[in-house]
């Protein structure tokens, strides 16, 4: 069945033959000159593609995934799979892993195509490689979509070369050989491991090679459930994050931050006294710049001593970029700047404006980076999603050539859009350059909430027009604080282009919005439009998970429910009847069945439905929301309880799932995010600073609000195009929760999260000076190691019915 690699050029699509998939784009495979076997794949006519900077805004693309995949095309060919003499296939993925499970899915694709066990595939994260240009940005749930085909091709070529080498070794025809789990087996039973062939199969000169893709039936892993490759390392504490590196060699460093956003430190009154505090090694002003948040950096023997020192610093600050502004001021601006609707068609117009408050993008690992800057070179370790840009910005800041800066991409503790910008990496480099020693920089949690990048506040005005028993018009206008897209496509040139006046808004914001603010229903004329206010660097924003869609999607879905009600139709059946495509109908029909739509529920519990399509995927979600008094008024210390989703059903069509378990995990996480954003999770802006400074202030999902029943169904492959899932689960879960709430209360919720403007904030905001709180000292008594002393009172807790102990 397999023919000997003839080392002549061939169009991969043609060569695919009976191989599963890979038909859309022309690719060429290579055997690459290396000591052991190395195979790569690239898209055809690369010179043509490379010459053309992606023309963002072309309407040939169906969605944002296409734009980003297209941008990655010219350089995808430089990716290669290597087989070592140890029989292990290695691949350095030019993307960032922050929990999405990329490394697992990628290992599955390689293992399948090479016929190797999973434990013989090692996927690592590539350091910044400027030659990759656009291809090193991790965002928009795009990685698998962009990487699937070239990765399969490269693996197939490697397998072919191994078989060819084995045929030579055994002196038999290659067609009589077969592979099995990392070995090649001859008809007479002789067998040889890939590792023993790795050198023999290597080439001295890079040549074009013909791939022979395996048949779909041979791909045993793709489309199944595979556990994470790092699961064991994680639960044994071995998985290493940036702050777990260079201990003892780099100084723990934390910064005192400004009392309002983006202010710069002008001076420190007591620097010399603070330098004398125990453990303190340095105190240095790090000015706020375009790339560096800055403040006053403190280096000490331990991070605890950094905290102590920061709390003692007396710092003079400049004005910030948002001084005096509060939620209400921003809302007023948003309301004044909405784009006009198109003239309404005849019929009954139903119009509503929804407000979406600022939400944090905090991952659990705060912004962190290790930096070692020397006079002639620098090395950085951080969870970077745009490492080429970081490398170039750091080089530019330090006056070094980019090749003198090594930017190592470390696995991160979550991202949610936070790590699109490499804020910590650049800041760490600035500090290291100033103090002339390696530093381990870690943001304090409070700073991460207050000064880190947030989901911009916005309003979404929606109008549906009903006439003759149907919806004939559906218009949406989104007005938002400007999202910072100055990471461009992860590379300095496009990033600079974004900083041109108006360019951030006109190019990237509009493009991203255009490709994501999709209406998946046939509901008549109308188009979503975006207007953004304030410049991109007034607030610290970024493409927080799912970018515009949690807002635009929720507004759309709440209005769809309202319109269905107007038409006297069941909201789920109505969606099925107006869904634009069969995959959309498919997820809706399935969720109706799986969720028991319309089933009898206790009084006070309500179902809500929503659907969404993005990243070449389709989802539908049904929640059951418990609005009973006993639930809503639950008392949990230092928490916002409120209504609870008690059952969640999600049906997911990602086109072609690679790792079903990974897709389920992403959807589950997206759902937790979406429910929290619907009900409780936000930031309150007051006088130029966010009030929230801890996980007991910003009410993200916690166990007491987790749905006890969760059912996620991933549909089997129906295309050869793996869609994205990382951000896919947020919008519909948020919207379904909002719709259940609307059903319970009889009216559309118009502010998100629904409990944002609660009468009691639910926490006492930490002061802005000093910028961070001191750590508690009562752990031993509070958590039951020592008996509680009678006299001493426990630190003030917000609600005191129970102890906080778990």
């Amino acid at each position, binding site marked *: 069945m397999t023919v000997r690699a003839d080392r002549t050029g061939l169009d991969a699509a043609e060569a695919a033959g009976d191989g599963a998939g890979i038909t859309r784009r022309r690719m060429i495979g290579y055997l690459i000159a290396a000591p052991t076997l190395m195979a790569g794949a690239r898209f055809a006519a690369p010179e043509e593609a490379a010459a053309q900077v992606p023309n963002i805004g072309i309407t040939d693309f169906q969605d944002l995934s296409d734009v980003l995949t297209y941008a990655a095309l010219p350089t995808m060919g430089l990716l290669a799979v290597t087989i070592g003499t140890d029989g292990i296939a290695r691949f350095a993925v030019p993307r960032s892993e922050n*929990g999405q499970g990329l490394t697992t899915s990628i290992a599955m694709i390689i293992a399948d195509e090479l016929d190797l066990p999973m434990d013989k595939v090692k996927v690592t994260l590539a350091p910044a490689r400027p030659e990759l240009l656009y291809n090193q940005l991790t965002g928009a749930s795009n990685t698998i979509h962009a990487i699937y085909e070239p990765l399969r091709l490269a693996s197939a070529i490697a397998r072919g070369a191994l078989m060819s080498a084995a045929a030579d070794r055994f002196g038999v025809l290659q067609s009589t050989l077969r592979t099995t789990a990392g070995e090649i087996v001859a008809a007479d039973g002789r067998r040889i491991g890939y590792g023993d062939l790795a050198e023999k199969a290597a080439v001295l000169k890079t040549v074009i090679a013909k791939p022979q893709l395996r048949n779909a039936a041979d791909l045993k892993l793709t489309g199944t459930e595979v556990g994470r490759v790092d699961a064991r390392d994680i639960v044994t504490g071995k998985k290493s994050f940036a702050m777990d590196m260079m201990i003892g060699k780099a100084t723990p460093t934390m910064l005192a931050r400004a009392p309002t956003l983006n202010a710069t430190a002008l001076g420190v009154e007591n620097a010399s006294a603070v330098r004398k505090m125990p453990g303190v090694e340095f105190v240095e002003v790090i000015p706020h710049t375009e790339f560096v948040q800055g403040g006053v950096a403190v280096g000490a023997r331990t991070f605890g001593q950094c905290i*102590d020192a920061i709390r003692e610093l007396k710092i003079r600050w400049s004005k910030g970029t948002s001084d005096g502004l509060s939620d209400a001021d921003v809302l007023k601006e948003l309301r004044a700047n909405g784009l006009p609707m198109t003239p309404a068609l005849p019929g009954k117009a139903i119009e509503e404006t929804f407000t979406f408050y600022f939400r944090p993008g905090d991952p659990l690992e705060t912004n962190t980076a290790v930096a070692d800057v020397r006079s002639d070179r620098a090395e950085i370790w951080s969870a970077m999603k745009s490492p080429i840009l970081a490398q170039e910005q750091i080089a530019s800041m330090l006056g070094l050539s980019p090749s003198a800066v090594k930017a190592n991409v470390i696995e991160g503790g979550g991202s949610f859009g936070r790590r699109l910008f490499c804020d910590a990496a650049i800041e760490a480099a600035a500090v290291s350059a100033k103090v002339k020693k390696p530093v381990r920089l870690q943001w304090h949690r409070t700073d991460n909430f207050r000064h880190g990048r947030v989901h911009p506040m916005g309003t979404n005005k929606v109008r549906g027009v009903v006439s003759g028993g149907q919806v004939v018009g559906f218009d949406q206008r989104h007005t938002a604080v400007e999202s910072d897209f100055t990471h461009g496509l992860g590379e300095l040139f496009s990033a600079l282009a974004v900083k041109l006046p108006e360019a951030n808004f006109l190019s990237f914001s509009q493009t991203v919005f255009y490709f994501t603010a999709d209406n998946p229903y046939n509901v008549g004329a109308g188009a979503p439009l975006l207007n953004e206010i304030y410049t991109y660097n007034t607030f610290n924003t970024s493409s927080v998970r799912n970018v515009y869609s949690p807002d635009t999607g929720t507004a759309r879905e709440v209005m769809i429910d309202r319109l269905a009600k107007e038409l006297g139709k069941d909201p789920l059946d109505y969606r099925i009847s107006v869904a634009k495509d069969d995959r959309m109908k498919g997820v809706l029909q399935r969720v109706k069945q799986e969720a028991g739509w319309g089933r009898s529920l206790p009084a006070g519990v309500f179902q809500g439905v929503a659907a969404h399509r993005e990243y070449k995927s389709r989802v539908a979600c049904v929640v059951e929301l418990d609005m009973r008094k006993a639930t809503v008024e639950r008392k949990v210390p230092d928490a916002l309880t409120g209504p609870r989703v008690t059952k969640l059903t999600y049906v997911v069509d990602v086109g072609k799932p690679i790792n079903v378990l990974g897709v389920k995990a992403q959807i589950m996480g997206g759902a937790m995010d979406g429910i929290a954003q619907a009900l409780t999770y936000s930031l309150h802006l007051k006088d130029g600073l966010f009030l929230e400074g801890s996980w007991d202030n910003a009410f993200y999902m916690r166990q007491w609000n987790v749905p006890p029943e969760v059912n996620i169904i991933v549909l089997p492959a129906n295309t050869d195009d793996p869609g994205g899932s990382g951000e896919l689960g947020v919008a519909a879960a948020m919207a379904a929760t909002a719709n259940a709430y609307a059903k319970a209360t009889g009216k559309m919720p118009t502010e998100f999260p629904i409990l944002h403007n609660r009468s009691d904030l639910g926490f006492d905001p930490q002061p802005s000076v000093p910028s961070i709180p001191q750590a508690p000292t009562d752990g031993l008594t509070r958590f039951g190691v020592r008996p509680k002393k009678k006299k001493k009172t426990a630190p003030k807790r917000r609600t005191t019915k129970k102890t906080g102990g778990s």
Partner: protein
Amino acid sequence: MPNHSFFVNGEKVTVDVESDVRLLWVLRDILGITGPKYGCSGGICRACTCHINGKAVPVCTVPVGKLRSTDKIVTIEGLGETVGKELHPMQEAWIEKDVAQCGYCQPGQVMAAVALVKDAQAKRRKVTDSDLDALRNVCRCGTYPRIREAIKLGEKGMPAPKRKKKRVVKKKPAARSSSDE
């Protein structure tokens, strides 16, 4: 600087550091034990949860000077050893249920889970949904539902300690109230 002695994962350690430095930083920055993670230094997110004499404690809340030389600290790295295996049943359950995503919070989650089961066992009952609801560990990836499943699975692998034969009648665990935590 004073010396502080205590046990970590079965070994006696002595560190020379100011008494008010929290145990989290002593473990991470001085001893290089990096399983406990920094997430807030406020005792809130619980990513640094370890066991001190069997109790789950976010060690960012413990000044090292308050430790006694007999105190026994177990970090995620030493959890397996406590049952004489490479992996504790709770760690196995975590792998079985493929709980983790980014993994940053999970060492703390596992340590909290083990203590939760032991607490329930001390009260002669199974872990309840109310117990799970009371867990405060933050997981920003949103693995919470899988954490709940894994705890119930891990609990099955954790034999309840043998009781001293004091009382005459054995109470059935299910008869206990589920809301006393």
